[in-house]
């Protein structure tokens, strides 16, 4: 029995190792929102929400995406799920080209990539019962209905820690944390490979945040799935993410394994962000790097490095030339001129 199973699964496993195809590959993704004015709706400019972003996401991995509000992290997530159409770039999910998929192909792909939303109040239809909400994806894809669907919904509710007696309740009868569990049950209904969590706990009380985060972690282990975790909260990302990407004004500033990034931040922006985390032991607290000014508007981002107007260590080249990503160590990439091997001596 064991042997047989081994024989069946082994070839698959090796094939996967040989190919080493990440679950999700994103290359040069761009999303510009045109600004239209006047009677003829002429485009007079564009909000560069996401500007040439590339990253990979392995299966069974959590990638955290952090950044200030307005840096484009939510748009990036929604573009990958094609809830927002991309301007340019490519994305492959399990080797399939997401942006070339037709409506019907996309509908099928959506079974494997689901989303958990930020606002647990707006993301559940107030006129539907829990059974209808969680069972909705099953009905849409014609997987289960009637008694069968009800059983599956009960099972899902159990997995997120809710009792089956809630089946016929409406969303307004639940607390924020419970609603977020319902949202997670809905995302799990189709057995996805990837769940995009957009600020999954930021609308919740601090006491409930930990519960939901732990649930996310347990679910990940039980279902062997990948998360793309979007958050502005560094503590949340550090707690859950295997790797972390820091976004600034539509670009990835730095991406690395979480323990690397949190212990040895390379980019001045990452360093400033991390220095702002309050420490549990006041005496140990390091020097806080204060950033001056506001985030520039993504309609006309600064030339050169986008961070240079606020960067404490900026030099001439930063004002002129956009930095390219440099690999410091394996899997630790940073977009900053400080680390460019060809520019060890700042000119001028």
């Amino acid at each position: 029995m064991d042997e047989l199973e081994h024989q069946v699964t082994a070839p698959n496993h090796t094939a996967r190792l040989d190919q080493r195809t990440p679950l999700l590959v994103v290359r040069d993704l761009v999303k510009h929102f045109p600004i239209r004015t006047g009677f003829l709706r002429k485009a007079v400019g564009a909000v560069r929400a996401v500007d040439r972003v590339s990253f990979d996401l392995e299966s069974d991995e959590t990638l955290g995406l952090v950044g200030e509000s307005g840096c484009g992290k939510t748009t990036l997530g929604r573009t990958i799920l094609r809830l927002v159409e991309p301007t340019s770039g490519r994305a492959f999910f399990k080797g399939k080209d997401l942006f070339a998929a037709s409506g019907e192909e996309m509908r099928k792909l959506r079974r494997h990539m689901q989303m958990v939303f930020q606002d647990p109040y707006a993301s559940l239809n107030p006129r539907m019962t829990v059974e209808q909400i969680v069972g909705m994806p099953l009905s849409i894809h014609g997987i289960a209905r009637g008694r069968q669907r009800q059983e599956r919904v009960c099972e899902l509710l159990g997995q997120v820690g809710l009792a089956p007696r809630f089946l016929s309740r409406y969303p307004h009868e639940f607390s924020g944390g419970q609603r977020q569990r319902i949202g997670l049950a809905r995302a799990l209904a189709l057995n996805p490979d990837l769940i995009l969590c957009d600020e999954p706990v930021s609308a919740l009380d601090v006491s409930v945040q930990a519960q939901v985060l732990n649930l996310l972690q347990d679910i990940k282990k039980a279902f062997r799935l990948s998360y793309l975790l979007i958050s502005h909260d560094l503590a949340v990302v550090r707690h859950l993410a295997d790797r972390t990407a820091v976004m600034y004004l539509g670009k990835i500033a730095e991406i690395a394994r979480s323990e690397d990034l949190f212990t040895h931040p390379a980019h001045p922006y990452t360093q400033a962000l991390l220095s702002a985390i309050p420490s549990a032991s006041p005496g140990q607290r390091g020097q806080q790097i204060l950033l001056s000014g506001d985030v520039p508007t993504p309609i006309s981002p600064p030339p050169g490095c986008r961070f240079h107007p606020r960067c404490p260590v900026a030099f001439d080249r930063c004002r002129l030339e956009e930095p390219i990503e440099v690999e410091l160590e394996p899997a630790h990439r940073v977009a900053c001129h400080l680390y460019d091997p060809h520019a060890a001596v700042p000119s001028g």
Partner: protein
Amino acid sequence: MAQAIEGRSLKQIAWSRLRRDRVALAGGITAILLILVAVFAPLLNRVFGHPQNEFHQDLINPNLGGIPEPGTWGGVSADFLLGVQPVTGRDLFTQIIYGSRVSLLVAFLATLVAVVIGVVMGIVAGYFGGWVDAVISRLMDLILAFPLVLFGIALISVLPPRNSVRIWLLIAIIGGFSWPYIGRIIRGQTMSLREREFVEAARGSGASSRWILFRELLPNLAAPILVYSTLIIPTNILFEAALSFLGVGVAPPTPSWGRLLSDAVNYYEFDPMYMAVPGCAIFITVLAFNLFGDGLRDALDPKASR
């Protein structure tokens, strides 16, 4: 944890508010009574009235041009609850209760037509936006700017005066011209609903536009649909009465409130009751539906404090 939160559904909240609103409740009860009268008109008539085309020449005075005896309030008696018609001497009570059938039937079916078209157009315009919204919105503007009464008169008067045709035509015209009122409201509500995350959640799960429109959005539009349907009914009753008054409503001998009114114009100096009775019938019906609709709107408004 969950037991502590004793949530009241919108239905319960609305009902408790409505129960305390006496004016709306009176309007609602009156409206239901009127509907019952229309449904059971033949039965009521057998008990309280006389056959529709039974002439009672003994109750009118041929020397006074055929009006009922002066001083009898248009011939009101225990036998003739609302008096008789001049010249023919037919029972006015019979005419009124049979007239309510036409009034309410046309008003209800026209409202149904208006609501179905209005909701579909409004939800589609609001959800898709862009050129779809532009086309539908301009169509609504066009219909609202149309000289409706003239159109009704022109169209109906060239068609054969058979009631089987006329009633359906009346319903089609009244419904076809009143849908933009509800369409605009549904469009606005849909525009705010479509930005809610649950719509995105459905789309992310692979739902088609049709699924989102009719399974996700429509249940959230139940309250405005209910309220504005109730408020369109009295408008349609008035509209049907106006067309009948102008002679393009249902054809005689089927009784109609509007035609009774236009007939009464010839006698109002000598027999004012003949005008007052159908006038009051229209007035009470319209008022009842309006009061109920207003009360319903207040009760279902989530922002109302009561």
